[in-house]
């Protein structure tokens, strides 16, 4: 076998839920090199945010991701509220944390199923996704929606939690905790799972720091960092929880971290429900946000989410920049796959819990020394559309200085 094969995994592949491309160079069944290509999902959300008022941006930002919609919305709002100097009532903070933890449960259960599917264990997929319905129904009950909860508003939250709903949440937590214990048992005892996950996708703590791994990916490599504990936003300062980490540094460790975080999430939700303070739900917020800038961090289910907002005194932001956790983690994939097998490629990719739609921002191709200026970029896009699509955009005027 002297000839090398380059296997394209993506942009369309059964293992990937969203388009992204991984070119895997193979030597027999062994991976020699892997090239990550992103950029199939660019939706121009950041740019769109600049042309809409803050209230509309909130809905747009919530649609950055289908799984961690609440994370992005809260992260964005925290930045805006900081600039506006709003003091959020405690009850709103509690509800934000509560929905955030429920989102984490739903995301981690989803991940467990996806990971099981990647290693051909569809039974676990069916089981976890059945139990995920419990939390999805609960979210629908609390907010009216299963995916984009839209529970945040500028200055607080829009919906309260009644006594009856509290009871239902606690009941669901008991059921889920029981089920999660069973999954923890399955992942640690089942022999084929262990064979497929342990010692696969090794990422040493040094490499994790160098590659900037965040969230469960980093925590599974002994990097004990969690924004909830470091930068106690929302109501996380008021509850007791431990940062789950693991020293396996492989896919198995990442699975254990996520299962451990599920258990922590149940306990956090119980504490939040118990302590839920009696304050108003929101404070009045201005439409025009004073000039200023802020960076906000949030521990999304996949890792640290960063939003940057710059306001200029109008009702629209001047700049919104967001960095989803997947962008921080995806570079580590090629390190993890060194000397791995082809069979491990998809599970290692899945182990960072990638969300490529959240990740894709604009990409500027840099060849050698030259970088594209705005003018060149516009010229390039006009030519591209003329050549490939037969559409002429020369007469389209952009509402900005060139």
């Amino acid at each position: 076998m002297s000839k090398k094969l380059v296997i394209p995994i993506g942009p369309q592949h059964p293992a990937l839920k969203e388009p992204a491309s991984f070119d895997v160079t193979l030597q027999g069944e062994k991976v020699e090199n892997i090239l990550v290509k992103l950029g199939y999902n660019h939706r121009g959300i950041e740019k769109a945010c600049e042309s809409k008022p803050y209230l509309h941006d909130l809905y747009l930002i919530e649609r950055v991701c289908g799984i961690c919609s609440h994370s992005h919305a809260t992260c964005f709002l925290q930045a805006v509220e900081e600039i506006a100097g709003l003091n959020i009532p405690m009850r709103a903070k509690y509800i934000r944390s509560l929905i955030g933890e429920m989102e984490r449960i739903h995301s981690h259960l989803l991940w467990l199923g996806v990971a099981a599917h990647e290693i051909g264990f569809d039974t676990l997929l069916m089981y976890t996704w059945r139990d995920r319905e419990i939390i999805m129904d609960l979210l629908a009950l609390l907010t009216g929606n299963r995916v984009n909860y839209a529970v945040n508003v500028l200055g607080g939250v829009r919906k309260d939690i009644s006594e009856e709903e509290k009871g239902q949440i606690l009941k669901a937590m008991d059921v889920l905790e029981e089920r999660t214990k069973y999954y923890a048992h399955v992942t640690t005892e089942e022999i084929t799972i262990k064979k497929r996950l342990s010692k696969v996708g090794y990422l040493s703590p040094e490499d994790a720091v160098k590659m900037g791994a965040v969230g469960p990916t980093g925590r599974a490599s002994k990097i004990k960092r969690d924004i909830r504990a470091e930068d106690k936003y929302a109501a996380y300062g008021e509850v007791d929880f431990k940062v789950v980490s693991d020293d396996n540094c492989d896919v198995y460790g990442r699975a254990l971290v996520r299962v451990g975080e599920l258990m922590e999430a149940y306990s956090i939700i119980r504490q939040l429900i118990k302590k839920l303070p009696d304050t108003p739900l929101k404070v009045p917020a201005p439409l025009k946000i004073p000039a200023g800038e802020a960076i906000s961090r949030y521990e999304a289910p996949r890792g640290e989410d960063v939003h940057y907002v710059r306001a200029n005194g109008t009702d629209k932001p001047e700049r919104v920049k967001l960095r989803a956790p997947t962008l921080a983690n995806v570079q580590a994939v090629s390190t993890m796959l060194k000397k791995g097998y082809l069979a491990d490629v998809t599970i290692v990719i899945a182990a960072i819990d990638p969300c490529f739609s959240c990740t894709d921002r604009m990409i500027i191709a840099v060849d050698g020394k030259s970088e594209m200026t705005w003018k060149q970029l516009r010229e390039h896009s006009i030519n591209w559309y003329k050549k490939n699509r037969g559409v002429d955009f020369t007469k389209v005027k952009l509402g900005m200085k060139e």
Partner: protein
Amino acid sequence: MILSLIKILIFPGFLFVFVLALAAEYADRKLYARMQTRIGPPWFQPFADFVKLLSKELIIPELADRTIFRILPLVACAAVAAAFLFIPVYNPESLFSFKGNIVAVIYILTIPTLTYFLAGWYSRSLYSLIGSMRVLTQMFSYEVPLLMAVLAPGILASSWTFSEVIAFYGSKGSLFCINVISFVVAVIAVQGKLEKVPFDIPEAETEIVAGTFTEYTGPLYAYFKLAMNIQTVSAAALLAAVFMPFGYNLGFILGIIIFLLKIFLIIVILAVVRTIFARIRMDQMVMFCWKYLTPLALLQILINIIIKAAAAQ
């Protein structure tokens, strides 16, 4: 002449095996679904799938060898259906009986695996290519323990002919239970032959799309799927005849019922195995087959030889 034609074409020949294969697929899918807390397909789903695939457009890759690409599914179907003709159904004599037909059946059952390899090779697609490599590698791992396990019961009977093995164990009461080790080995190896979890490495969906069958569409894929299902039935019938050699002299109706029950039992075992494991890696599969399965099969052969020598004295 007409009677043997009826036997070949209708019962217990091709039509019977066709219906049995679809029923086996239904049983497997329904069991798999129920164990995963899903509802599962209705009873006619396998047949509906077959008809639907037959009516779909056939696309042949530009670079593929058109003749071989078309012939291979039919060869696979023919081979597995032919294998079934040599296996006893309700009486100890199979439709065509000759000396050493157990060996012949094992050989014929290897042909479909080779067609899967060739199908991937001639598709000229990257995923198919890797799939076909994996088919071959996997075959070299499970085929040896399978052969040894299936032939082990024949050592005691001093024959590798179905009718003689059945007659020998039929007269010895529950002696066939001694072959339980090789039965376990054979069931695991058959799981590899049928390319099902945990050994569905050649068609691992999340790694190489559909493996060797990636480029196959429409009717040709339908025939490959059918061949897979008949292979399930043929392999189950083979295991039933060799490892459960009872209930063959009870007349037509009772004989058929017992035969179907035995096939069903094996399909249940295969479905349970498929439900409770994850897919293992190629290197782990090869390791597992040579490190555990082959020595176990050897152990059975050793036991049988010792018992035989002891009985002869």
